[in-house]
């Protein structure tokens, strides 16, 4: 029984950290006034680039420490580069943010599939990798990974940046009332670029935090299985506030982890197995966070604290 709980806990930590990274990324982007639907695609690209780097470096026999750092950096940079695609057309040219985000998602899946197929000669769509450098095992069932520490640091830094630094104040101003921000000499475009790039960086990091610890292969046709969208739900649930996002990520990851370990956990507590005949499958648990956020949205949307200018391209001449 204890083993099952430890397993649940380690799954929870993995998912919570990964979701939190991406949700924080979404928060930065939306706080600056750009809706980032493309987080899912950014995750796919960032994670894919990270995995390729990891494989290349471990083949070259690089020391473990350097491998870890370079892999993470490459994932972050890839995420940022990909998010730049969104930033340029949405901020510079005022394109529709939702549509562009959707396009990024479509493109990311296609690109990662093309390259994985190319790498395997057109046969397989998955990449194998070894995650020993990132994951530390304690005992039989509990494990934690390096992203846990990065995640806690990221949460604290996000809070400080958003509420204690001048940068954060200006970023929030650009999301709430860009015209007012502009009138006191803040470069709205610059801050929106910063917001989107931060979301790209955190998206790439989150993708690694999700892909690396959970398995030893990654199937590019699955991508990140809706994690980017789940992170958006967390961001809304957390009302665009970093600490709340951290807490809600734990809650959501609890449901998500249950979908993996529910049968063993239930068996060890109550003594009988849940199967599809009882009407319980893992899909049920995966549905729950989405349903919960939908219900919450219905009740709280009238007093939602969403950034007021999100989704509206800033046009200086209309000030």
């Amino acid at each position: 029984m204890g083993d099952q709980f430890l397993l649940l806990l380690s799954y929870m930590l993995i998912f919570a950290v990964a979701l939190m990274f991406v949700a924080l990324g979404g928060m930065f982007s939306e706080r600056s006034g750009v809706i980032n639907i493309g987080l899912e695609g950014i995750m796919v690209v960032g994670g894919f680039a990270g995995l390729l780097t990891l494989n290349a470096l471990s083949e070259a026999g690089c020391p473990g420490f350097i491998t870890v750092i370079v892999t993470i950096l490459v994932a972050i940079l890839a995420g940022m580069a990909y998010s730049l695609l969104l930033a340029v057309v949405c901020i510079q040219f005022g394109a529709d943010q939702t549509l562009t985000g959707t396009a990024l998602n479509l493109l990311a899946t296609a690109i990662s599939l093309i390259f994985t197929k190319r790498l395997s000669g057109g046969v397989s769509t998955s990449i194998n990798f070894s995650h020993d450098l990132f994951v530390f095992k304690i005992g039989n069932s509990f494990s934690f990974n390096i992203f846990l520490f990065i995640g806690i640091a990221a949460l604290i830094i996000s809070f400080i940046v958003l509420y204690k630094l001048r940068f954060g104040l200006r970023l929030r101003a650009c999301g709430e009332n860009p015209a007012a921000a502009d009138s006191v000499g803040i470069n709205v475009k610059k801050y929106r670029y910063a917001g989107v790039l931060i979301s790209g960086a955190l998206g790439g990091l989150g993708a690694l935090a999700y892909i690396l610890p959970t398995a030893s292969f990654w199937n590019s046709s699955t991508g990140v299985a809706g994690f980017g969208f789940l992170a958006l739900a967390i961001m809304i649930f957390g009302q665009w506030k970093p600490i709340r996002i951290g807490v809600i990520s734990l809650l959501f990851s609890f449901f998500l982890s249950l979908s993996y370990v529910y049968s063993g956990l239930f068996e060890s507590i109550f003594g009988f197995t849940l199967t599809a005949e009882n009407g319980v499958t893992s899909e049920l648990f995966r549905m729950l966070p989405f349903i919960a956020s939908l219900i919450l949205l219905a009740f709280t949307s009238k007093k939602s604290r969403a950034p007021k200018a999100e989704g509206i391209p800033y046009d200086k001449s209309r000030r």
Partner: protein
Amino acid sequence: MEKSKFSFNELPRRTLNLLKSQGAFKTYSSIICILISLIIGLIFLISMDPANAFPEFGNMITGGLSFGGVNFFAIMAKTAPLLCAGLSIVFANKTGMFNIGVAGQYTIGILGSLMFAIQFKCPWYVCILMAMVFGAIWAAIPGLLKAFCNVSEVISGIMLNWIALFFTNYSFQTYLNSCVDITQGSKTYDLMMVNPSARLPDFGLSNATGGYFTISIFIALIAAILVWFIMSKTTLGFQLKASGLNKDATKYAGIKEKRNIIISMAISGALAALGASLYYLAGLEEWSVQASTSLPQVPWNGIVVAFVGQLSPIGTIFASIFTTLISHGSRFMLQTSFPAEIGDFITGLIVYLSGLTNLAVILVNKYLAKRKERQAEFALVSAGGGETSLNNESVINNETEEIKNEKVVDENLNNIDETNKENNEEGGNN
């Protein structure tokens, strides 16, 4: 020897007007988008395998038609669901909604059509109808949330997409598990084996066309014409369009805008689900419970074709044929060098660029307006600087020009203030 020269301006006046209309500009921008995407795709191919790039590219954009007539019917069969998904986006968009929940409505449509086809052994028209009811209900949820709780339809649509996927899988794992053939890798049963009456009618042409020909494409085309008819010829269509253009004005005019939002979403969802049933009842594929860890691709491509078709039902028909041509053709490329996903890559690029087409239209309009303004100004200056108000932009742009009359300057400042106020009010309403 006399040679007749072609001159653009000598075309008949009506043709000229047509070529210079807003709709024509939209068409040009779509075509430019497609061309740029194809060129980028070609560069992509050349960078992968230069020797085979050109012939394989040819295979892709002809949709593999050189590999036999069966492909023609395959493309028609795959166009039908895509067209319906595109129409779904178009319809919702006319009411000012971005129905990103189309993937969920499509998935629920799969559940509805397969449930009634395999579990209840209903004939095809019942399956289609029930799928459409399922889709309409599913899409009405974001509509209701938007109308009464002010929830953005994009956010609720995304949530409902994933709920639909997990719910469909959950259904086939539990109470519908008799629909699933465990021996065939837990896919749903082949319709021809368990309930041939649920398969769309093919007039006995199935074998001659490789199993691809059904009446699906005709149903989809009728749907497109119906959407066009509702939008442009009926009171309902007028009301929907009006509330998409200005919510408050329609409310003032006595149109029930909340009801309109829900109706528009429900119809949009029904169209998406119709697409799903046209795909699965034509027997093109079976739903695989194990492999379905992400949402189906067809409805996402529906977003592509809707925007490439410039959000018009007729444009969507051509866009969906073209998109299917590419995605079908990409399977005929040398798979070791060029994976079939290059088709998806190109369609993704098209929709990414189509975000910019409006920009092109705006830029052209701005240029034309500026030119007109400059001409007017020129006339004004030559007439001796009458007291006409120049607008905001021209003042900023013409800093070099000295305006002698102080009165004019004062008036201009007042004008700027007024336009600012108006803009702020507009922004507040949005």
